């Protein structure tokens, strides 16, 4: 069996991003559940958090391919 160990490493590192995205959206859902009218305020913040957390996973993907 042949392959590249990079991809295994990327799979491991994606766990971090996954936990981060989960935390962001858990907080968002909590906030909206407690105060539904805050949804418009919270939504961009949640997506910004998603984008920032995801950045690490994206860099990981690139490094997995490039290195």
């Amino acid at each position, binding site marked *: 069996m042949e392959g590249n160990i990079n991809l295994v490493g990327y799979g491991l590192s994606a766990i971090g991003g996954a936990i981060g995205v989960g935390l962001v959206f858990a907080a968002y859902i909590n906030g909206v559940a407690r105060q539904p009218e805050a949804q418009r305020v919270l939504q961009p913040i949640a997506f910004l958090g998603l984008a920032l957390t995801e*950045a690490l996973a*994206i860099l990981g993907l690139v490094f997995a391919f*490039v290195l």
Partner: protein
Amino acid sequence: MIALALPAAANEGGFVPPTLEDMHLPEILPWAAEYGTGFGKQMLLVLLSVALIAWFFLAASRRGQLVPGKLQHLGEMSYNFVRNSVGKDIIGERDYRPYVPLLFSLFFFILVNNLFGSVPLLQIPTPSHVGTAYALAGIVYITWIVLGLKKHGIGYFKLAVVPAGVPKAILPLIVIIEIISTFLVRPVTHSLRLFATMLAGHLIIMLSAAGSEFLIMDADFWFKPLGVLTIAGGVGMYMFEILIQVLQAYVFVLLTAIYIQGSLAEEH
């Protein structure tokens, strides 16, 4: 993309997974053979998307009526979505107006180009070629730097990298981190987010299609029913991919608005 080593190909009769090379079809206009024209399928799809968007919004806005018909209503709704929930909410009531056209065209350009990945026969999202994503993120990168310079003069760079209220002792460290994260990592992640999600989604669909074909056509008798599972999984990913495609267009435009707002803001 040198070492994307999926399992080795060309072992007789075995499964040959699709590679990144399979995503980039030969160029349609083959002159200047040495370097190629770069005019491939994706380029054609970009032109098609521009024509589609222009056609749709021209048709939707041609006969503006007080009580909108179906088409006009759809056009107005999609315009209002970008204008209000991205532009107004993030850049702010006071000065969001000049940036609505940029946000609007970015959103629909990316949305249509992403959705091409889920249209049968077209079936490739244009941003799965990294050039598209670089160009789009490059436009945004230049835009918010120029906007910041116009608003604050050369002091913008100080404003952008020196946060207020940080102790002097650790200021050099913070400034270096800020320079890297604002001016280097930001455009890179902005473009690669779009590119990587589109590429990965398309690769998964390709993989499940190739896997199904292999399992049903070539595999041993007992493995053939497994092809049904890969088809089901492929269809599931296809649906999920539509969600991702819309979401990524939204995230791209949202980040554009946030960057523009950041360079217009008075303080860090």
